[in-house]
């Protein structure tokens, strides 16, 4: 956090929480949407894709707003986000590998 507020004795700034509560409502709405999808749409690759997109959206709001990463220096943002994209790659590779293991047992 770059800005440091030096408050004088007995003088405290008013809370500024509108953005926090907005993020909270977005996260709740996305979770509710996931529930609706879970009970209305039958399981398919498409549904899994929608779930993953919604999850990444929620993660972006938590990391970006709650953890404040969106407002950090660009280099720090990439230092955190870039390694995680490789994890996504590993996940995909291992799921495909799992499918191959299953086919081998058939």
């Amino acid at each position, binding site marked *: 956090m770059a800005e440091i507020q030096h408050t004088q004795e007995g003088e405290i700034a008013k809370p500024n929480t509108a953005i926090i509560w907005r993020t909270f409502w977005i996260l709740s709405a996305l979770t509710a949407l996931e529930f609706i999808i879970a009970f209305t749409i039958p399981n398919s690759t498409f549904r899994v894709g929608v779930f993953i997109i919604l999850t990444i959206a929620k993660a972006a709001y938590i*990391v970006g707003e709650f953890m404040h990463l969106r407002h950090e220096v660009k280099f*720090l943002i990439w230092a955190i986000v870039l390694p995680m994209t490789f*994890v996504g790659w590993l996940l995909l590779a291992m799921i495909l590998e799992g499918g191959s293991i299953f086919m081998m047992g058939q």
Partner: protein
Amino acid sequence: MATATNSEQGIDWGGGNLPLRASWGKLMMWFFLLSDAFSFSALLISYGLSRYSHKAFDGKISEFTFSQAHWPIPEKVFEAVPFLHGISLPLVFVGIMTFILILSSVTMVLAVEAGHRGDRRDVEKWMLWTILGGITFLGCQAWEWTHFIHGTEGGGATDFYGNVIYGANLIQNQYGPVPFADLFFFITGFHGMHVTSGVILNIIIFYNTSIGIYDRPNRKIDEGASRYEMVEKVGLYWHFVDLVWVFVFTFFYLV
């Protein structure tokens, strides 16, 4: 300034001040969380590998039965809610847990915001709410584990000898293949352990705040940090715990 003389003597690095415009402690928390994310990813990737190397259930959901021959459908496994015995309420309890954790993340970010303003009373208030949320979540998870371990009344899958299995542990699982229960215990257990240590850290920060450590005028703080930065660092950890739960919720309970 002390730091300026340090730089002149070559103790600090010589490449300008705070290249990432974050204090040392906060950066270390970020990189710790990145490595912690790798641990959780490893567990979730193991889950993905196990799941896709087992047969998926391909019939109608209403005809689903527990069997070791196919991977269970999560909404058939997690359908119990405390005090509502015998009523099928798929994913309701885990939804409540998710909501509690998101809410405690919000109160944490409110505590961080109060810290920026130097408002000790507000920090105390929001830290207490966060601790309460964390403990509530842990209580829910304890119930969830108990239910999962004890199993359902009629039991579920049959083992190799045709005996009905009741409940689940690391070597037997009434809900489906054994790795399903193993990974349930590992993933939610590892997450619950993080929540536990998060609650302990929050309690320490709450204690420090209420005895006024962060308001001491002669307290040494890192360069680029605010007086209440410890709240922010522990806040990062707490949000990370919430973040992991978002992924656990999707990959374990929804997909």
